[in-house]
């Protein structure tokens, strides 16, 4: 990418990153060959890709651009006295053993169980400084969108594509369309990035971003910390967009400075100078634009079975009778039937059984601080799991004494992993239970067959934990 091509026309952040990674341009007959800078990997979506490499006698082309962890199948209880891990079942254990074998056989850097860097793939990657502005990042995981918070083009791929990237460091891709989500106004105290993204998805719908890469812009986005930006981009996929992006700025550069894989000293300054050229040019055109005003946004909570079914925490459960479109009415009716919630009733005060604080959406230090601020000096009235997103987060939280606040409140302070976000490791709801969860999906059965998920921010989840019911966190931290 030269200065001359830069000057040719105004481009969006997405176009700049895309253009810089085209190995072979797309034609009507063939998609673009797109180069991948960073390939992240976990145990669930990689085994069949390594099997394919073995079948075809292929190697991992760039082990130095490949980074793996274990997170989905791993237990969140500590190692047993005899040194073994308390896996939920033999399949979980075999899956973790498989990525350990694959990493060894193919020379891939793995931060697995017992490694101080281990964590949820979208938490540990940025912590290691592996995710950097302007990169292309992929992983066999839809929440790869998270890494777009750094101004990277980051998206989830399937296992066949994991195999393609392992073998060639490239993907075949048609260029997606661009969608600007301009966020006007300022978030009120007690309202967070999670509330913002739930509001955006409620506005555009779960399929609203299909075929697009979202770029989040505007003053409310610039005001977010990196943790908040990661929460926002993380859930781009819940609005149907494979990737969400935020232009890098001083907040980004300060966060990256000193991280292990980030260039140091003069090389860092040079990198920052390059990264400053990434933001969307004045006059660049998006395929679509949506504006969201957040001045009056309240903490959000979902009542239904997709992430677009969210309402303000002070709101009432919608009435399907008021819905004119028959398909939309059927969707709403089916959600309320599954959730066993009554139309027209306030969501505040809805009794709950479990609270989950964690995940790639809200398992970072700032998220835990938010939850601790509400739980401090109070007792939980439900089963409450607090699961740090990584060992680094866990260590930092313990250094601040957050673990004591959670334990004193009666919450379970667990080892890092995906845990109850998708309930693959035995951390799961019982049928019929209600859970206020800081994760990203409230799909039927996501947290265990028959389980009922209400998505919310860490503060709202903590408020629910100490209230035993859906509660407004603003009433608990002001008093």
């Amino acid at each position, binding site marked *: 990418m030269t200065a001359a091509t830069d000057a040719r026309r105004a481009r969006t952040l997405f176009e700049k990153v895309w253009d810089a990674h085209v*190995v*072979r341009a797309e034609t*009507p*007959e*063939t*998609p673009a*060959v797109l*180069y991948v800078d960073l390939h992240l990997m976990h145990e*669930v*979506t990689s*085994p*069949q890709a390594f*099997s394919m490499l073995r079948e*075809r006698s292929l190697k991992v082309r760039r082990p130095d651009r490949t980074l793996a962890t274990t997170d*989905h*199948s791993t237990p969140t209880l500590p190692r047993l006295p005899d040194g073994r891990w308390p896996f939920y*079942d033999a399949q979980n254990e075999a*899956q973790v053993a498989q990525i350990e074998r694959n990493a060894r056989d193919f020379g891939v850097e793995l931060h697995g169980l017992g490694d101080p860097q281990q964590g949820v793939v979208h938490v540990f990657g940025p912590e290691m400084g592996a995710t950097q502005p302007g990169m292309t990042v992929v992983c*066999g*995981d*839809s929440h790869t969108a998270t890494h777009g918070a750094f101004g990277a083009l980051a*998206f*989830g*791929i*399937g*296992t*066949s*594509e994991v195999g*393609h990237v392992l*073998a*060639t*460091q*490239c*993907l*075949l891709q*048609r260029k997606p369309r661009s969608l600007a989500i301009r966020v006007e106004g300022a978030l009120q105290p007690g309202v967070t990035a999670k509330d913002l993204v739930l509001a955006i998805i409620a506005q555009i719908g*779960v*399929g609203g971003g*299909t*075929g697009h890469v979202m770029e989040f812009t505007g003053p409310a986005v610039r005001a977010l910390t990196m943790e908040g930006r990661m929460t926002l981009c993380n859930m781009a*996929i819940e609005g*149907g967009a*494979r990737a969400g992006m935020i232009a890098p700025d001083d907040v980004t550069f300060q966060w990256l400075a000193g991280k292990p894989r980030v260039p140091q000293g003069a090389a860092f300054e040079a990198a920052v100078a390059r990264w400053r050229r990434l933001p969307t040019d004045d006059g660049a055109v998006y395929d679509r634009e949506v504006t969201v005003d957040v001045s009056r946004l309240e903490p959000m909570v979902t009542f239904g079975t*997709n992430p677009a079914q969210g309402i303000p925490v002070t709101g009432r459960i919608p009435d399907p009778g008021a819905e004119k479109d028959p*398909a*939309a009415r*059927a*969707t709403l009716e*089916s959600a309320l039937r599954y959730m066993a919630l009554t139309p027209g009733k306030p969501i505040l005060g809805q009794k709950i059984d479990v609270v989950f604080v964690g995940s790639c959406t809200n398992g970072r230090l700032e998220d835990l601080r938010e939850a601790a601020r509400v739980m401090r000096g109070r007792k939980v009235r439900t089963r409450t799991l607090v699961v740090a997103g990584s060992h680094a987060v866990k260590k930092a939280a313990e250094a601040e004494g957050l673990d004591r606040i959670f334990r004193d409140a009666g919450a379970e302070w667990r080892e890092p992993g995906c845990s109850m976000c*998708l*309930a*693959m490791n035995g951390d799961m709801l019982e*049928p019929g239970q209600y859970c206020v969860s800081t994760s990203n*999906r409230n*799909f*039927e*059965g*996501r947290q265990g*067959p*028959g389980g009922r998920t209400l998505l919310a921010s860490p503060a709202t989840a903590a408020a629910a934990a100490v209230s035993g019911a859906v509660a407004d966190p603003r009433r608990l931290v002001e008093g």
Partner: protein
Amino acid sequence: MEPIRTIESRTVVIPRENIDTDQIIPGRFLKVTDKQGLGKALFSDWRYDAGGKPRPEFVLNLPEAQGCTVLVAGDNFGCGSSREHAPWALVDHGIRAVVSTRIADIFRNNALKNGLVPVVLDPASHAKLLAAPGAKVRIDISSQTVALPDGTTASFPLDGFAKYCLLNGVDELGFLLSQEEAIAAFESKV
């Protein structure tokens, strides 16, 4: 992959919108390290009760649904996770095409890599199929058309390269591997 030119079948209709990948195959079935036999977990929480018995009223369990290879679903099929286990489960069950008004990006990519044809129709044509469960349809890959039960024909979009792969039974990896020289040249510039 076997080449696919046409798919002829009666339809199975699940009229729900936003059928997510957790419904297609719940997370607890993702602990496998191969892709065999996932068809038995397809729509598991809708197909079976808590004791594992088939729910007789669920459409896939109806006698007339046996052998059907075309699934018609509501808008925005396959939203959610990137799990390729979703198309693996559908294909293992015998489904060869999924028809909706919108299909999620990652699911569509994954489907195509497994010879499962994602068919996005205009709302009017789609509505005809929703209204006629069990109707006979014929999907023609080459002309990108679906012959509907009322005798009309609807067309659907299909990327030229994806179409070539389906018609010839080839996968993308071969093409990517043939790009080695261009990839190496790109890397030497970075």
